């Protein structure tokens, strides 16, 4: 060999040892998807059968067709001075605002708690103290302190999202790989650069998971939040329909809440795949 390393070896070296394994994303009509669809269809059929046979009074369980008809009515004409879309929009706006506030406060606090044992010592007991308390339990206190306006509703949802997001961020920061940190230090990274280029991106998978959990909890707090003097929102719609025993509208509201939650979850999963494609592989 003339060269220290021949072009042949370089080319041979340049081949990846194994073809990269891409995460298998289920094709639209894969087995699990088909089974899931069948499961939903069986449930709908059972619902239809039970109501058609009049085993249960329509007052308690209206047939699917009645709910569908109500959907068309509420979507077009509205219920309680607002269409279904306006109710959903009001709820989504509250959750979005709460999410924004939680992201802007919980992520910095989580970073701080992950980096500083002192900060962790100060805030960890506070967060762990209120986190397991159901939002309905502290809702009255929020109403006493902040009234029955929009502030109380958004605050309740914010608090629900805040705790899982702080905890996930702090955990993500504490789990940052030590050699990555050292590598950046060896390149002369400042503290700020270390945070920006190593710590934050390393913690991103955890932060996104915290966001998913937080958004789930936040959305499920919605009905509680809209118990308080709301005039619009899916939670309010379900509550007031229940008072008039409008079971079809209650069901419609529940389905809408569930479908939106499902959509949010899918969206966040897609975001996670896009933002952290290396998760579980590096």
């Amino acid at each position, binding site marked *: 060999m003339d060269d220290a*390393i021949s072009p042949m070896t370089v080319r041979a070296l*340049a081949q990846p040892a194994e073809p990269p394994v891409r995460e298998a994303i289920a094709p639209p009509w894969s087995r699990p998807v088909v089974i899931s669809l069948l499961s939903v269809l069986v449930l709908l059929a059972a619902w239809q059968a039970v109501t058609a046979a009049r085993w249960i009074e329509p007052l308690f369980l209206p047939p699917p067709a009645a709910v569908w008809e109500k959907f068309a009515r509420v979507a077009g004409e509205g219920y309680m001075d607002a269409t279904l879309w306006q109710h959903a929009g009001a709820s989504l706006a509250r959750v979005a605002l709460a999410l924004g506030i939680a992201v802007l406060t919980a992520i910095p606090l989580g970073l701080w708690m992950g980096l500083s044992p002192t900060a962790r010592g100060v805030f960890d007991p506070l967060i762990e103290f209120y986190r397991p308390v159901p939002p309905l339990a502290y809702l009255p206190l929020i109403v006493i302190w902040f009234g029955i306006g929009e502030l109380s509703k958004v605050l309740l949802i914010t608090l629900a999202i805040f705790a899982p997001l702080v905890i996930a961020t702090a955990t993500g920061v504490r789990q940052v790989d030590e050699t990555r940190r*050292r590598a950046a230090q060896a*390149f002369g990274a400042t503290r700020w650069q270390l945070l920006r280029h190593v710590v934050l991106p390393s913690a991103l998978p955890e932060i996104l998971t915290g966001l998913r959990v937080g958004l789930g909890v936040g959305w499920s707090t919605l009905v509680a939040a809209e118990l308080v003097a709301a005039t619009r929102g899916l939670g309010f719609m379900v509550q007031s329909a229940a008072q008039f025993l409008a079971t079809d509208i209650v069901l419609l509201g529940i389905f809408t809440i569930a479908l939106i939650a499902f959509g949010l979850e899918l969206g966040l999963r897609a975001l996670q795949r896009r933002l952290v494609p290396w998760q579980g592989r590096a």
Partner: protein
Amino acid sequence: MVELQAVTVGYRGAAGSTTAVNTPVLDAIDWQISQGALAVLLGPSGCGKSSLLNVIAGFVTPSGGRASVSGRAITGPGADRGVVFQDDALLPWLDVLNNVALPLRLRGGGRAAREDKAREFLALVGLEGFESRPVWELSGGMRQRVGIARALAADPEVLLMDEPFGALDALTRERMQELLLKVWQATGKTIVLVTHGVEEAVFLATDLVVLSRRPARIVQHRLLDFGRRHAQGEAARAIKSLPEFVAVREQVLGAVFAQDEALH
């Protein structure tokens, strides 16, 4: 030039360890690594090779003695010393090019300039055409080459390598040794490499140190030139089967074994 004078590292009480309490990790290590040397640290596992490298890197503060690079005392990690880790420590959210350009980015260079520089070092390690690939798609050997290119992009005086080929398969390992010699020849950098592979150590080193078990002292110090001969054109396998290579390898192996047996 790296200068170590009576460098001692005390036991720091790692959690969960019950053995070797109060046994220093490094005991008064004296070593002068000259400019442009390929210095190799060899020793039984757990002997403190990596600790000594970490002292030079500035990650570990010695409890006694002096460590300096080109006359400047080492007080912490710094850009004059680049580090290549056994597990590559690449950043998975950056592609190959941006990983290599990272040290320059931290230093605040212009985008075009740092990308040119990164491309140059990627070419040196044989990775042209892989610039925009995500690093988590690469094989272990390729990731190590990205790590080497990244460390070189920082243009350090000394390149420190902590068992860089330890996790690679035998064939890739030999290729990487040859690649390292090529890179060393091309850049003229001083390299300090830690390994537990005796053949690897004898093949690469111009300056070979064998450490004893804890507390680590230098039990053998040799100046060799097999790596240089390969860099100047002799085939790797031919060198590794030369009688003089085999003789040195067996002597070094004997010294390492003697340390290992002293444990049992």
